[in-house]
């Protein structure tokens, strides 16, 4: 059926415009920086065990980011991206889901993998592109993924995962699974055509997908006011006819609460939800970036004071679920583990030369086998030029 709108909607006889201010979008905040919750705030489902697991994940996240940046500076690692200042989004999102839910990451959501149990070794093997990497050493550092953990491998091409998430969720629905797909993306990636495609198709096809936008103020050097003129990303939910909520992305309880409700809604109604988490990318875009070229120390300092990890710690302390002794011990333990893992991973061989042609197709073609044979013969002729593979096949 086509639009029956002719006699349906409101009518005016003087020109009446709407614009970006036509809808107010409040931001959900539950936890104050000092660790107290707002009066009458609606708390998420959370007990001491879950809280502790979340906090430990956040702590591990901080340590991993700190250590890997250091490794990169030392020249041991080619590249790294931290999620400094916005860890609550990825960890809280994962904590609100069930293990059977698919999570699609952009690249700044290592917290989801940590929460789901991606091991230190998994992280290291990926970053050092060695033979143990689940991804077989084919993508740059931080492009993790795991079938077992239902975390889709990261792809560098921005926003491509957004329509894919709609399709994935639609497949889950067709099978009648109690499962949703959660899709992370940045406010920059939300400018891509694939964003529009994905949100609209999810709405039309009624796919149980949670679109989780991390609005961290920047896309590399580009601030949000050169990225869009609307009221954040949440305001677009109106146009897609999609249930939408804006939250304080540095408030772990708000992240948990919103994602828990979104999951319940997506499963029950079989419809998508859009969450916009307001936060700030405290670090550089990546280890290749120096943000002092495009923003001020003052701005950074302001956001530093909203640190999500410190905020959760304050709450944990107030709950008496945490103390400074545990804190020190935990960070020390993680630092040692990470350092040890780096040392192991960087010594593991690169992937076997045969992996050059696997996984292009389900089975290597005759042409690919011939091409591999030629490479092998060549490596054998000039072993010193190909130290990663010479003598290893």
């Amino acid at each position, binding site marked *: 059926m086509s639009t029956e709108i002719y006699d349906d909607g409101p009518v005016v006889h003087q020109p009446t415009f709407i614009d970006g201010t036509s809808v107010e979008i409040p931001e959900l905040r539950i936890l104050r920086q000092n660790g107290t919750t707002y009066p009458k705030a609606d708390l998420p489902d959370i007990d001491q065990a879950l809280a502790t697991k979340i906090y430990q994940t956040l702590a591990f996240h901080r340590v991993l980011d700190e250590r890997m940046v250091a490794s990169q500076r030392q020249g041991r690692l080619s590249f790294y991206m931290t999620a400094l200042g916005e860890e609550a989004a990825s960890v809280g999102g994962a904590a609100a889901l069930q293990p059977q839910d698919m999570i699609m990451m952009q690249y700044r959501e290592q917290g989801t993998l940590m929460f789901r149990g991606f091991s230190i070794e998994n992280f290291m093997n990926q970053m050092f592109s060695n033979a143990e990497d689940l991804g077989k050493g084919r993508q740059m550092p931080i492009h993790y993924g795991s079938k077992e953990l239902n975390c889709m491998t990261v792809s560098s091409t921005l926003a491509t995962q957004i*329509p*894919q998430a709609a399709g994935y969720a639609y497949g889950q629905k067709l099978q009648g699974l109690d499962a949703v797909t959660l899709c992370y993306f940045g406010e920059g990636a939300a400018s891509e055509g694939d964003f*529009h495609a994905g949100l609209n198709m999810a709405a039309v096809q009624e796919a149980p997908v949670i679109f989780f936008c991390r609005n961290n103020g920047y896309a590399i050097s580009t601030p949000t006011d050169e990225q869009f003129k609307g009221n954040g990303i949440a305001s677009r939910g109106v146009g897609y006819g999609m249930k939408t909520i804006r939250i304080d992305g540095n408030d772990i309880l708000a992240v948990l609460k919103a994602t828990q409700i979104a999951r319940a809604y997506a499963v029950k109604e079989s419809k998508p939800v859009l969450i916009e988490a307001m936060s700030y990318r405290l670090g550089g875009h990546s280890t290749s970036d120096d943000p002092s070229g495009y923003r001020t120390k003052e701005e950074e300092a302001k956001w530093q004071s909203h640190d999500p990890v410190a905020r959760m710690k304050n709450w944990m302390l107030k709950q008496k679920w945490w103390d400074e002794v545990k804190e020190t011990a935990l960070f020390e333990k993680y630092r040692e583990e990470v350092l040890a893992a780096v040392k192991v991973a960087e010594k593991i061989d690169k992937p076997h030369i045969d992996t050059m042609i696997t996984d*292009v197709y389900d089975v290597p073609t005759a042409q690919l086998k011939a091409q591999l044979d030629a490479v092998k013969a060549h490596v054998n002729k000039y072993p010193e030029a190909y130290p990663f593979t010479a003598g290893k096949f």
Partner: protein
Amino acid sequence: MAQINLLQAINSALDIAMAENERTVCFGEDVGHFGGVFRATSGLQEKYGKARCFNSPLVEQGIIGFANGLAAQGTVAIAEIQFADYIFPAFDQIVNEAAKFRYRTGNEFNVGKLTIRSPYGGGIAGGLYHSQSPEAYFAHTPGLKVVIPRNPYQAKGLLLASIRDDNPVVFFEPKRLYRASVGEVPEEDYQLPLGKAEVVQTGTDITLLAWGAQMEIIEKAAQMASNDGISCEVVDLRTILPWDIETITNSVMKTGRLLISQEAPLTAGFASEIAATVQSECFLHLESPIARVCGLDTPYPLALEKEYVSDHLKVYEAIKKTVNF
């Protein structure tokens, strides 16, 4: 065996694929209730329900993005792009995503269950946006399979094989032949192999190679040449990627000459890849230069379409030139 046309053969393959596996879905612009602008998906929504055969919004990048997600999830996704000329907005989702999915994830995930169907080619007074033959754009993309049938029998068997193949397949359908090409097609299930060319007619003087709608053109030219006493071996490439080097080089070793006819523009078309490989593999057997009879290096025209395209007369002339080199 019934006499059916190419569209009906496609429809029959889709019907079999949807009947055998309830996790098979078909979608694209106008694919649902209406059955597609060419009616290739006719009756499928009625039979299998709106959840499994549906209209998508008008967004090719979304269609393929959605299909990639479905396939990664384990659903058999058959996506239609209404015209091959409109596949380019989805180019990133095909070339950067579908083609590289299994490789980049180290086989943690794959979209092998994806098939993209799209009508391609000229000869229908469609001008530059309803006539393109974009197979070469995809042929430079490891990870994809690209398949083009020449008639109803081939269409059904190759489409079923494409749907079941565990790799993403781009399946181009020669729309000029949708209703024009009629032939015997078994009602039941059968498959034809991917990655295998077919020698349609054996001959000794020259190998004529093409795919899709160009096949009837080279067959007609072969007929004309035979009146001149030239014996042509006629080969249908069928799968553009990965292509069957062996069958082609075997034929050329025997005939010593090769002519490739292609609808797309000459420069950097797939005929170029074939010529490049064959000159290398068959260097000492070649008695004349490999001939490429192709579209001109311009967009596909409208009024002067006949002048533009590779037809039987151009192929016939090129055969004589090659044989008399």
